[in-house]
């Protein structure tokens, strides 16, 4: 009787587990699976059977509707489930014409529609069933949930999330028609691929507002030197460009590793860059001195292990001679 020993589970049980850890996944995902309720992702279209429905009729219903489990109900109360495996057993053992109530699984795990999706995920992980019936607070059967419903639901939500993020991005871009404003650029350690992007945008924004080109050139130089410093020396940080009516303030901020001797770092020719970085044409020990040279005001503070913040201020009507 080895077939009877197979627990109520799908033939592809190995594919059931949803590969989402409900404790240590990224915050966005965790937030999503706790915020989303089972009622948001479950299937509400139910195909049910009565206690007197035969297993044969259920088999036909499964084939017709392409489903693999049918709840057996009395009114809106669920009494049991007949799964594809029960049907296979019935066909094998020759009791396919018996009523559902005789062979259905009565030992059910039932979820409530107000539970978060994370509950359903851990239930699927723990029990290896392919579907759970879902009831509301009045104990009425309101839906069925499968792993597929969850992945589909999550995909739909993730799509929405990405769409929202993309729209946010366009919104901030379209605000850039005014000169005044603030932009932040995340700078990654050793990412020479993206190096210069922030400076290019700063340059373009100043140019499109008719700022004199010697001023643009100085702002571009200051921004680029600060940006490339973050790429070369920091553990990652950000460039913040703050455009005012009469000046631009460019700040480079990082969270480490900090400069041991700021005065030494401001000395032309002093560098801690590696040979690889020098081979790219950087690390000549001129970055900070260059940035200071083109700035009207330049400040830098640094704490070892904590980080560095450098700010360059450049006025559009220069009171300092053009450094070029």
């Amino acid at each position: 009787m080895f077939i009877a020993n197979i627990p109520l589970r799908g033939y592809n049980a190995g594919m059931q587990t949803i590969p989402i850890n409900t404790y240590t996944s990224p915050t966005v995902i965790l937030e999503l699976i706790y915020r989303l309720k089972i009622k948001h992702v479950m299937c509400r279209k139910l195909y049910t059977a009565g206690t007197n429905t035969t297993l044969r009729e259920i088999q036909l219903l499964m084939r017709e509707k392409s489903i693999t489990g049918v709840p057996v109900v009395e009114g809106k109360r669920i009494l049991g489930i007949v799964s594809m495996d029960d049907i296979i057993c019935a066909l094998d053992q020759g009791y396919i014409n018996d009523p559902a109530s005789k062979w259905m699984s009565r030992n059910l795990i039932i979820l409530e529609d107000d539970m978060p999706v994370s509950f359903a995920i851990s239930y699927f992980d723990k029990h290896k069933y392919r579907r759970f019936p879902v009831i509301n607070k009045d104990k009425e059967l309101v839906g069925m949930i499968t792993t597929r419903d969850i992945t589909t639901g999550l995909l739909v939500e993730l799509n929405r999330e990405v769409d929202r993020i993309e729209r946010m991005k366009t919104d901030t871009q379209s605000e850039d028609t005014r000169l005044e404003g603030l932009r932040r650029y995340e700078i990654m350690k050793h990412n020479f691929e993206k190096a210069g992007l922030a400076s290019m945008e700063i340059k373009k924004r100043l140019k499109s507002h008719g700022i004199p080109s010697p001023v643009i050139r100085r702002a571009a130089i200051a921004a680029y030197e600060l940006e490339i410093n973050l790429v070369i020396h920091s553990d990652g940080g950000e460039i913040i460009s703050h455009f005012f009516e009469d000046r631009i303030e460019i700040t480079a901020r990082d969270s480490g590793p900090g400069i041991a001797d700021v005065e030494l770092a401001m000395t032309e020719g002093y560098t801690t860059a590696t040979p690889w970085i020098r081979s790219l044409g950087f690390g000549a020990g001129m970055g900070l001195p260059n940035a200071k040279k083109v700035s009207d005001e330049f400040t830098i503070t640094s704490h070892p292990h904590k980080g560095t913040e450098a700010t360059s201020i450049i006025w559009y009507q220069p009171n300092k001679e053009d450094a070029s």
Partner: protein
Amino acid sequence: MNLNYLSRTLGYKVLQEPEHDAVVSQAYTSDLLSDVMGNAPEDSVLITVQGHKNTVAVASLAGMKAIILCSNRSAPDEMLDAAAQEGIAVFATRDSQFTVSYKVARGLGLV
């Protein structure tokens, strides 16, 4: 000096076309990009062996018009893509930086 001088008279290979009738009045020879950034004059041509995307970024930010890659250095596609986007002409030659420098100086009428 019209940038076409570099291809027509000196026979340098054009990797990225100059903008129509683009002219430069000066040149700067260096491989240190922060040296270029801090000291290269505007409306100039950069004579270098640094063939990568960051060279274009620096040239563009410093207001330069063209780059000459010397000593048979090659330019990666991403460098040429960036150059096209920023409107920076790129030339290549087997000449060393010294040779390019005096030939360009002659073209600029400096010697």
